[in-house]
């Protein structure tokens, strides 16, 4: 019956729009991240096609500026971060033995605010004024004097919205991890992905305020005539750079730590050994997070800070390589002597280790100011950060996708297609970015839309472009894999990998309440302990008893709510009012306040029997 089918679809749609279930929110983040990842990838492919040959005319210089700005902004804020967020959302409660996050509606709010920010930034394309000032928006190129169109405004305001989303999520996960771990799960018994995510949340809530201020100062300059970045009034464009990189450097650790956490889960599972030196890996993660706040000016070695500042940041940057190196050695130690199964999740983690190490080596080179003066603003830097962000974060995140896919979807991905994806991606990636080291050293600057034929750059640019097309092909393979197995893949069962941590002890996909019986934890690899004992002849830990219908009935599931969605819309109306009319800002602002009130009051004095 068409009527009931439409009603049913509407019901399903509404349930997704009002969900407060961390697992569904994780799926929302992951799906959105993948779509924006493809968009960012297309932006990259167009750039590579333009650069394949000298004096090319595929796109104009202006369009090229928009492409590199949007590619960078999209990949960082709309792809890698939400991919990580999808794992925080889906997996963190499962890994700590909890039934949800501390603030389920705030969680949903984070997602809807993220989506509105993502759409806002990309709205520039629709109006022909896509952001074009680089993903780092340096002042005073970003001033109204040099960027008179709204392009910068879409970027600036969109990032503000995204910042709110990230910070709300950060508060949520910090409280969740501190306050909702299953009984017996001390901090040192937390799985590594939880630890790395925990450090990441602190980075999020402490770094985003800095860029929020940088963007506010820019907003006031552009809309209200302040002089923060105006050299003519004594303003210092370096203020922008400092505030931006005080955010920007922790941001790169935000981008890599979750992936490192994933690798630290995958390696032990597929080597059938506990993580080697787990406390050292944990401590290194904390060190990286903390000291990541002390190295930001290594992005500014060429601005003339003076020898003392340059040296201080150079030394700090070199020191921060030490905990990273410790982690790499511990990962290798995990594999050493293990009983290794070369399944797709492991392949991507191995790729992570190799590629991230290479990126780290070029990074160490950048840590020396005299060396960096040659490398900065050339393709050498482009190579470096793609090795750590693509070779690192993306490979790591895909390791997580292949690892946790069966848990989320209840079906295995096709292993052969997974291997094809991996090898095509690895080969394509290296073909794209390795030559960029050479291009940088022979003088090719960043952010140029074309180059002359007599510079000798054309060969490696062509190689790089072909590599990028191979990367694209690898993602076609992944999409085919997903489509093929979504409905008809092999059912995964609860524990397809013979896993070690709590998420593998519940069905795939998990029921809405995750754990029928709250687990008690004795070890970091609690589930392994339950299955196999402690390897020292001790008996396996007792598994939770079977759940009864009464157990299930007693579980309180937070009800869905439309306020997160509506509040996010109100915020979007208010912020976009800056580009439309003061009237809209006021209306949006009042709506936002109203929605905040209703959100806060929704569960005030609930019906009897629900507690407070």
């Amino acid at each position, binding site marked *: 019956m068409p009527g009931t089918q439409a009603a049913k679809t509407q019901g399903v749609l509404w349930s997704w729009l009002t969900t407060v279930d961390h697992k569904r929110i994780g799926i929302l983040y992951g799906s959105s991240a993948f779509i924006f990842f493809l968009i960012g990838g297309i932006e990259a492919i167009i750039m590579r096609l333009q650069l394949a040959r000298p004096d090319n005319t595929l796109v104009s210089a202006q369009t090229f500026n928009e492409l590199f700005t949007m590619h960078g902004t999209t990949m960082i804020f709309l792809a890698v971060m939400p991919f990580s967020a999808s794992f925080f959302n889906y997996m963190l409660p499962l890994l700590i033995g909890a039934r949800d996050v501390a603030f389920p509606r705030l969680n949903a709010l984070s997602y809807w605010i993220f989506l509105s920010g993502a759409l806002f930034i990309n709205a520039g394309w629709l109006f022909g004024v896509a952001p074009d000032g680089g993903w780092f928006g340096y002042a005073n190129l970003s001033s109204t004097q040099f960027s008179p169109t709204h392009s910068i405004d879409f970027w600036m305001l969109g990032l503000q919205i995204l910042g709110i989303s990230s910070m709300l999520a950060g508060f949520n996960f910090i409280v969740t991890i501190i306050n909702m771990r299953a009984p017996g799960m001390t901090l040192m018994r937390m799985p590594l992905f939880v630890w790395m995510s925990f450090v990441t949340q602190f980075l999020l809530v*402490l770094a985003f305020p*800095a860029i929020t201020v940088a963007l506010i100062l820019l907003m006031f300059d552009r809309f209200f005539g302040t002089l923060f970045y105006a050299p003519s009034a004594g303003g210092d464009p370096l203020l922008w750079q400092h505030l931006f990189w005080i955010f920007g450097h922790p941001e790169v650790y935000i981008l890599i730590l979750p992936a490192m956490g994933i690798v630290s889960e995958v390696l032990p599972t597929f080597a059938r050994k506990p993580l080697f030196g787990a406390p050292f890996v944990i401590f290194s993660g904390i060190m990286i997070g903390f000291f990541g706040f002390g190295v930001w000016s290594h992005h500014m070695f060429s601005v003339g*800070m*003076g020898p003392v500042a340059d040296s201080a940041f150079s030394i700090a940057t070199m020191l921060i390589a030490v905990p990273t190196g410790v982690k790499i050695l511990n990962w290798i130690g995990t594999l050493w002597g293990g009983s290794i199964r070369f399944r797709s999740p492991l392949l991507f983690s191995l790729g992570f280790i190799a590629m991230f190490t290479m990126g780290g080596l070029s990074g160490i080179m950048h840590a020396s100011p005299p060396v960096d003066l040659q490398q900065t603003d050339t393709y050498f830097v482009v190579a470096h950060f793609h090795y750590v962000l693509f070779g690192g974060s993306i490979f790591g995140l895909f390791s997580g996708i292949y690892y946790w896919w069966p848990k989320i979807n209840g079906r295995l991905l096709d292993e052969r297609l997974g291997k094809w994806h991996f090898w095509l991606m690895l080969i394509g990636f290296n073909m794209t970015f390795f030559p960029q080291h050479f291009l940088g050293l022979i003088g090719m600057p960043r952010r140029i839309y074309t180059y002359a034929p007599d510079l000798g750059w054309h060969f490696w640019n062509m190689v790089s472009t072909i590599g990028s097309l191979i990367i694209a092909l690898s993602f076609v393979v992944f999409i085919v894999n997903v489509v093929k197995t979504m409905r008809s893949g092999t059912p995964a069962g609860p524990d397809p990998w013979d896993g070690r941590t709590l998420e593998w002890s519940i069905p795939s996909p998990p029921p809405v309440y995750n754990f029928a019986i709250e687990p008690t934890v004795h070890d970091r690899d609690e589930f392994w302990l339950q299955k196999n004992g402690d390897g020292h002849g001790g008996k396996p830990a007792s598994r939770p008893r079977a759940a009864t219908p009464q157990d299930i009935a007693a579980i309180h599931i937070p009800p869905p709510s439309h306020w997160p969605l509506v509040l996010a819309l109100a915020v979007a109306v208010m912020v976009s009012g800056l580009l439309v009319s003061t009237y809209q800002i006021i209306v949006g602002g009042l709506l936002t306040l109203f929605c905040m009130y209703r959100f806060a009051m929704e569960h005030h004095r609930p019906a009897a029997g629900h507690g407070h």
Partner: protein
Amino acid sequence: MAEAHTAAQQSHGGGHVTVKTYINVAVALAILTAIEVATLYTPGIPHTLLVSALLFMSALKFFLVVGFFMHLRYDSPIMRALFVGPLIIAIAIILALLALLGAFILLPRHVP
């Protein structure tokens, strides 16, 4: 009701601050503010000493409000860590920012 009371007690830690203590703290804050303003108007104080004195007194006020009114002195160490850690990082970054942008003459800069 009893349950809510227990929850409140648990949440705000062991110590029980009385109204009297609060008023004492408020009086201390008022006195410190008065001293601050008076110090400002006292002639003949060397600049460094003046700045140090003002910063010291405001830090004292800061910790009085945080410790007593915000109850952090009596609360769980977790709450303390969640606030004090970021506070320290924020102060460190402000100082670094000032040094780098030449607000104190700490770092010799390139003169082009």
